[in-house]
């Protein structure tokens, strides 16, 4: 295009843009959902009756290329059972200032205890608060779950748990948790770590 109207062409482009669809995402007001398989913050899952799936095997910590995961396993006892089987993760920490959200820990986890959520709003003001403890990572208590520690479902072993044969917490388990909480009630809990 040349001639006297050449200069107006630029204005034409600007004017035409006014009728185009706006691509801007209004982030804090309207949050676009992530892709379903987005790598976000981790979740430590529970079995359907509330026992933890983590067995404290440290495979996630070994798989981690950034050394972001710290696990300390401990033995389950008859009085304090957190997971089906022998061991559970007593200390479970993920340092989100090291974690690169690669998902190798998820692939390494033999019991599907560790999965990733779609949550990504993680910014914080101190380094210490970005080291997530087990309490921060554990998934929410769904209906039908009883808070660990409590015994396994009567007549089931850990194989049945991994095969998903266990449903919601049985009345015996709920009764156990209730009596444990009633016994703990007077004294403040001192085993928080």
């Amino acid at each position: 295009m040349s001639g006297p109207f050449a200069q107006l062409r630029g204005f034409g482009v600007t004017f035409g843009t006014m009728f185009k669809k706006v691509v801007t995402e209004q982030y804090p007001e309207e949050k676009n959902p992530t892709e379903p398989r987005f790598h976000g913050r981790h979740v430590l899952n529970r079995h359907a009756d509330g026992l933890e799936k983590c067995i404290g095997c440290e495979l996630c910590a070994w798989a981690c290329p950034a050394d972001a995961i710290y696990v300390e396993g401990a033995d389950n006892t008859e009085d304090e059972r957190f997971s089906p089987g022998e061991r559970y993760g007593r200390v479970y920490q993920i340092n989100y200032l090291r974690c690169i959200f690669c998902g190798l820990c998820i692939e390494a986890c033999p019991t599907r205890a560790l999965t990733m959520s779609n949550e990504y709003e993680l910014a914080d003001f101190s380094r210490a608060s970005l080291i997530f403890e087990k309490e921060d990572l554990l998934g929410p208590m769904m209906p039908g779950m009883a808070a660990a520690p409590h015994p396994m479902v009567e007549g089931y072993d850990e194989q049945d748990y991994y095969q998903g044969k266990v449903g919601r917490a049985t009345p015996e388990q709920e009764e156990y948790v209730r009596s444990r909480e009633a016994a703990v009630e007077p004294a403040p809990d001192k085993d928080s770590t």
Partner: protein
Amino acid sequence: MGIEEKLPSGVLLTTVENLAGYMRKSSLWPATFGLACCAIEMMASGAPRYDLARFGMEVFRASPRQADLMIVAGRVSQKMAPVLRQIYDQMPNPKWVLSMGVCASSGGMFNNYAIVQGVDHVVPVDIYLPGCPPRPEMLMDAILKLHEQIASAPLGVNRVKAEHEAETLALTAKPTAQMKGLLR
């Protein structure tokens, strides 16, 4: 520094605080400190799709004297550390530092001798943003959290008091040598 240092603690000072905080948070001027892949996401945040202009901060200043927010985006090598500090020193007060991505925040997966294990070894960091790299939404979330902090920042005697409180809290805090796990 300014007139707010002379004001007595009270209604007048809190009003000035609110006003100054609102103005500071609404016109942050980021200094570009793109060092690696996080810088790509930082640029994407400034581009039309995410559009940092909505928060009054679309111009990334290459000159530190015109900037008050340093977004350290990417891993800081030992050789870059003095440069980073110089850029920070050249920025006028008040200034903030956003440590974007795990490498800037703690060294991330580069736990080796070439990379500074967190820019807070070099400059004071106001907000840490995990992610490798963080998506633009995460950066905007961090910026909005920082905005809240800036808007409620104390001035004058209140600032001195807040600093004193933070100092006493830090002195009485449990030493990291006594902590367990990753905090150690």
